[in-house]
Every structure is written in structure tokens, then in C-alpha cells.
């Protein structure tokens, strides 16, 4: 068990002219929960499908649980469980039948498959609905069943491709709990997500990928440190004050970033002088005659980490979760490309990523 769970070297996969994977290198030690974080089209799904032996790679070597995905695909398949972006369960069968189908295909005898189905239903709190057709399940229940189906074979490595995409917040929290439950029992997990909070909540190690390559990796804390410490955040009362606040901070030697949608200006505040930065920031902004709604010093979000490392924002759903850069005001901002970049990457959920 000392060998790495995943060893990827120089993975290349092209779909027509676009390279979904473009020389991806990645090593995952055993006993970890790793999140692959990146926007749509970064190559996350292609990578997970490669690990699941479903993609014929154009170049590179990929070993999973010590087995080569190409030459020893069956051994790899015995070691993994896969849950995809959608709930890949059959709506016209009961939850129990779905689980039994997976168990039987895995090679379990009928009686064993029945037993594992029963125990998986119990583990995921689905015992009461186990004999109902899946088409009567809620979205959250389907995802749980899907997760359960990937656990029927008690895999060494669980692959979760955007496990909570499309779930409402409550179902999402619920599924997080289920995933954490599996982790405490010792299952290694490789999950992809475009949600920074999800990566931070579930994973001990995060790999950021962009355009088919790994651009950074580390623990959430390490990645945050790489962006350069704390963030001073100024929340103005009147949107018209944004330029004035940004200009004042710029004069004080900061590199402010403006987010018009949330009426916030943020700026790096160094590592160790958080209180001083706060006091100076407050004075600077007040002297500029700006009415404050709030001001504070906080840890950088992973979104800011992504921005700093890749030059563009991670959020690509166009739901306004990325700072909309205002080039006129935010001099020296690292995010000048944010505006045009976001929507371009975010077209369609599976474009480019999957095939």
C-alpha cells in the first residue's frame, strides 16, 4: 500500500484539435482525499475517465493502484469505483436492483450482491426507499444511490466526477457528509470539482488544473500561502464610491481588485501585520470620503488562489461567483483577463471536457 494510488506522467488526450489533457503530471499518495480543481474544459473529467480506464490516451503513462491503465485495465477496474457527473442509475429499477446489478457485474455471486446492496442502502440511509423505483427518488437521493453503487465493490480508490453539480445546497451538504463518512472508513478519494469550498471541505490535497495541465498543488493552507497572505476587503455602501476606494488603496501601495457586483475592493495585506493593515486600510478609505458598509482582513479564498496561479478565475458558470474585474480602476490587477475569459470557458457543461 506504499505505492502511489495514481501516477500520471505526461498525459495527453486530444479530441480533434483541442487537447483535453496536455502533458498532465500528477502523483497521488495512498491514503488521501485529493481534489482536482479547475474550470469547465480544464480536463478534469477526461482525467478521471482516464483513471477509470475509459479513455485511450494519446501519450503518457498512467498507473492506478500500481497497475497500468492500458495493459492491466481489469486490475485497475477492480480497484476503483466511479461516480460520474450525473446520477448514473437506472430510474426504471429499484435502488436495490441498481446496486445488485453493479455487484453482479463486479463479479459477486447473487447472494453476495444482495447482501452488499442491503448494507450499502443502510450506509447511505436509503433502506426505506430501497425497494422503490429510482424514478421516484429526489435528485439528492439519486446521487447518494449513485455514490452507493460505486461503493458496492468496496473499492480502494473512489473516483467522483463533480459529485454535487446540480444539487440544491441542502442535498449538497448531505452528500458531503456521505463522502466524509467514506473517507473516515479509509477509502481513498479522487474528486473533481469547480467549487472551491467543496475542495477545501473534503480534500486534504488539492491539485489545480488548467488547460490540461496541473498548474499547482498542495494542501489548502499551502495554496493560500502562495497567494501571499491575507486579504484586506473593503465593502462600500455606494457603488459610485468604488473607484475612489480603489484609488485610495492604490495610493497607499496596495494592488486593489474591484468587484462591482458585490461592491467590494480587495487587496493583499501581507502575512503578519493583519491588524496594522486593517487600521491603515480603514484610515486610507475614510480619508478618501468613502462610506463603508464593512471592512475586514480575511484569509484568501481558493478562488483568489486560482486567479493568482492561472491568471484567470475559476468560477465559470456565469453565476457571479468570480470577481468581475474592472480594468479601469483595478490597476495592476492580476485578473485583467477575467471578464472575457469566464464565459468563454464556461459554455456548456461537458464541452471539451468529456470526450
Amino acid at each position, binding site marked *: 500500500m506504499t505505492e502511489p494510488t495514481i501516477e500520471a506522467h505526461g498525459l495527453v488526450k486530444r479530441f480533434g484539435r483541442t487537447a483535453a489533457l496536455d502533458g498532465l503530471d500528477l502523483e497521488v499518495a495512498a491514503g488521501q482525499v485529493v481534489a482536482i480543481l479547475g474550470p469547465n474544459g480544464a480536463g478534469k473529467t477526461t482525467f478521471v*475517465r482516464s483513471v*477509470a*480506464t*475509459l*479513455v*485511450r490516451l494519446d501519450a503518457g503513462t498512467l498507473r492506478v493502484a500500481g497497475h497500468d491503465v492500458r495493459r492491466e485495465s*481489469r486490475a485497475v*477496474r*477492480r480497484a*476503483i*469505483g*466511479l*461516480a*460520474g*457527473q*450525473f*446520477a*448514473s*442509475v*437506472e430510474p*426504471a*429499477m429499484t435502488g436495490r*436492483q441498481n446496486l445488485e*446489478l*453493479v*455487484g*453482479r*457485474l*463486479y*463479479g*459477486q*455471486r447473487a447472494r*453476495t450482491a444482495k*447482501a*452488499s446492496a442491503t*448494507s*450499502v442502502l*443502510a*450506509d447511505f440511509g436509503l433502506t426505506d426507499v430501497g425497494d422503490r*423505483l429510482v424514478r421516484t427518488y429526489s435528485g439528492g437521493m439519486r446521487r447518494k444511490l449513485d455514490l452507493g*453503487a*460505486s461503493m*458496492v*465493490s*468496496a473499492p480502494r480508490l473512489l473516483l467522483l*466526477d463533480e459529485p454535487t453539480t446540480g444539487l440544491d445546497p441542502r442535498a449538497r451538504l448531505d452528500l458531503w457528509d456521505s463522502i466524509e463518512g467514506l473517507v473516515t*472508513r479509509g477509502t481513498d478519494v479522487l474528486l473533481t470539482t469547480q467549487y472551491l469550498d467543496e475542495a477545501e471541505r473534503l480534500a486534504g490535497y488539492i491539485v489545480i488544473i488548467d488547460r490540461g495541465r496541473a498548474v499547482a498543488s498542495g494542501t489548502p493552507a499551502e495554496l493560500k500561502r502562495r497567494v501571499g497572505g491575507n486579504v484586506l476587503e473593503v465593502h462600500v455602501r455606494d457603488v459610485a464610491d468604488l473607484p475612489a476606494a480603489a484609488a485610495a488603496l492604490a495610493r497607499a501601495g496596495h494592488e486593489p481588485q474591484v468587484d462591482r457586483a458585490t461592491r467590494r475592493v480587495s487587496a493583499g495585506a501581507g502575512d503578519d501585520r493583519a491588524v496594522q493593515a486593517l487600521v491603515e486600510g480603514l484610515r486610507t478609505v475614510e480619508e478618501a470620503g468613502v462610506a463603508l458598509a464593512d471592512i475586514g482582513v480575511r484569509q484568501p479564498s481558493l478562488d483568489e488562489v486560482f486567479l493568482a496561479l492561472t491568471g484567470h478565475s475559476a468560477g465559470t458558470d456565469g453565476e457571479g461567483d468570480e470577481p468581475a474585474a474592472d480594468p479601469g480602476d483595478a490597476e495592476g490587477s492580476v485578473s485583467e483577463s477575467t471578464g472575457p475569459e469566464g464565459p468563454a470557458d464556461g459554455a456548456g457543461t461537458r464541452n471539451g471536457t468529456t*470526450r
Partner: protein
Amino acid sequence: MSTLKGTTMTTAVTARDRGAGLSTASLLVAKRAVLTFLRTPQLIIVGTVQLVGFLVTFRYVFGGAFGDYKGLAYVDFAVPGFIAAGVPFTLIGTAVVMAEDLHTGFIDRLRSLPSPSAAVLTGRVLADTVVLAWSLAVATLVGFAIGFRLHGSVLQGLAAFGLCLLFGLAFSWVFILLGLVARNGQAAQGLSLLVFPVTFGSSAYVPIDGMPGWLRAFAENQPVTWMANAVRALTLGDKAVPVLGHGAGYFVVRALIWSVAIMIVFFGLAVAVFRRG
């Protein structure tokens, strides 16, 4: 928590090393597909009602205007053709389900298991045969109810039915390929509209003598005409030669050659697309 640990141990010990074999896996996949068919009212009820509706429409709406064909009642002309052409119509569902299974990741799930990936396709073909047998049986019963009669022997009638199932094996691969290429249900449904020119531009519903030259040239050289004529000839027995110009054997051989050719070509293409991942 402890229950899961227990199961883990059991599964690790009892699971065979290589996953289910091809035949077991195919049966499991087929069982799921048949269950889906049986438990999806749109498929089984709407499909069957549609089939009956079409058959009745042809018999009474077009049949009235049509009259006899070389001494053969229209119902005896049309029902065998209708059943043969019903094969591709019935299998449109295969393209749609394949595309949706691909889109939702169901196929990825199956392929990520240690059982042979080929079972995804062989299981589908197996299920198609079962579903087809059901649909064709319904169509045959309705055919008899609206006045169709066998002119040949019962054995020939059964051979005609079996022949339709063989056509089904060939068309299954066509629709599997369409589904794999389409990648989503609606596109698959759209591509499946190809069934219309191929069935209506054939001898399935009307004799091709009355078609304009260009259409006739198409109809004479495409598989559905041969399949419809083969099934028709078998149901006509001794009447086949005066009505169709040749005996059943002549049509059956050509229909079989078409079926095998379609099967080989589309099997190869479907497997290639499936493996591409």
C-alpha cells in the same frame, strides 16, 4: 459503520477476480434493458398503441383506396410488409436509450467495472430481440384480428417471424451506432428519422410498380424491400410466385445477405466508436 466493514471482507473474498463473464454480464445488461422497457409506459403502452393504430389505419384507410394487388387482398399484402418494416421502427428506441446511457454516464459506470465492456453492446442486442419479439407478436395478432390470413403453412409463418428477429439483429447494430454517434437522446431520435424514407420507399406498404422511376430504383435496391418481400413470400406460400414473381427462397436468400452485410458493417463501426471512448 461496522456493517460496511463486514461486507467489505465478504465481497473481497467471494468476488471472482475477473468480474462477471461475458454471458452473465450480457444477461444482466439485457435484463436491465427489458425491465426499463416494461416499466416505462411511454415505451410499452405508447409503442404498442402506435403500432396497432398504424396497422388499423393502413388496413382501413389506405386499404380501401388500394383494392387488390394481382388478386391479393391489401390486408394480406400489407400486414407482412408492415411487420418487416416494424423491425427498424421498433428499434429506434435502442438509439435513444444508447445515447442517453452514454450521456448520463451509465455506460461509463458499466465499463468501469471489471466485467467485459462488450456486454454493454451484446446485452443491448439481446434485449432488443426480446422487445422486438413482443412488438412483432402484438402486430401479428392485430394483423390476424383485422383479417390477415396465412396462405402458406404455419411453419412458413413461423419462419417469417424468425426472419424478422434476424433482421432485428442487423438493425440493432445500426441503431446502436446511431445512438453512440448522436450522444444525446434527441439527436438520436432525429437521426432515427432515416427510418421513414427507408421503410416508405420500399415494398413494405405498397407495391413498388406504381412508384416513379427514381423512387423505384431506390426501392428495388434497398434492404427493407427485400426483407418485406421475403416475409410476404413466406406468408403467401404457393401464391408467392404469381403475386411477387419469385418463390420465397429467392427473397429470403437476398434478405439474409442484406442482413448479414448490415450486421458486419454496423457491428464493426459500432465497436470502433464504442472503443474510442
